[in-house]
């Protein structure tokens, strides 16, 4: 399940769906990203998120396929929001269920790391009086390469 949307999401609903995926599920790992008050800039009051419709979904589907090839993944649910988001709002959700916790953690973290470096989203930080397109962080690229 992959969704790119403006509206907010409820992690509890996603968790319920993952939990309902079958009697062989023993482990559910989730990650949620929030808008926080310091990124490249301090005093961030919001973000603007742009994406490339169509390509985004294809890239994320590819990441889920790749994760499913490497680990035991019963189901993966991914939501990424776009548009204007305020401080504290939810940006992204990745949830994975599996028989085993190691696979659930690894697949969840792999997808999340790869989302940051492979999926066509761009983030602009907004402070009281300025805007600033976020630069890709070398640390994010390094994290993604560490899975290769």
């Amino acid at each position: 399940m992959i969704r790119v949307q403006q509206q907010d999401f409820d992690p509890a609903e996603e968790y319920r769906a993952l939990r309902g995926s079958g009697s062989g599920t023993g482990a559910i790992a989730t990650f949620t990203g929030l808008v926080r008050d310091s990124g490249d800039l301090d005093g961030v009051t919001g973000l603007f998120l742009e994406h490339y419709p169509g390509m985004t979904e294809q890239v994320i589907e590819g990441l889920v396929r790749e994760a499913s090839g490497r680990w035991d993944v019963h189901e993966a649910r991914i939501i990424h929001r776009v548009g204007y988001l305020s401080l504290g709002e939810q940006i992204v959700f990745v949830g994975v269920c599996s028989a085993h916790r190691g696979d659930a953690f690894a697949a969840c973290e792999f997808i999340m790391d790869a989302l940051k470096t492979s999926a066509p989203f761009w983030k602009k930080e907004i402070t009281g009086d300025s805007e600033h397109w976020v630069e890709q962080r070398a640390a994010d690229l390094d994290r993604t390469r560490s899975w290769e």
Partner: protein
Amino acid sequence: MATNNTITVKFFARLREELDTATLTVEAEPGLTAGRLLHDLAGKGGNWAQLDGALPVMIAVNQVMTKPDKVLQPGDEVAFFPPVTGG
């Protein structure tokens, strides 16, 4: 969308803003590569000059990431954008 003998070019994020262009259409010349198209667009000068190596530009053709030597076909959709920063 591109018609018979054209290529659709898209820009995103900082590039879309600085070039003040989300989409444009170019003629599909035989053998034209994505990298060559980028170089040609840089030749327009002004903010367009940055396309020629000043900052990293990622390339997708038909919504798949690709390298500059990719040859473009009539009807292709090519996108240029800064390194991604989602998540």
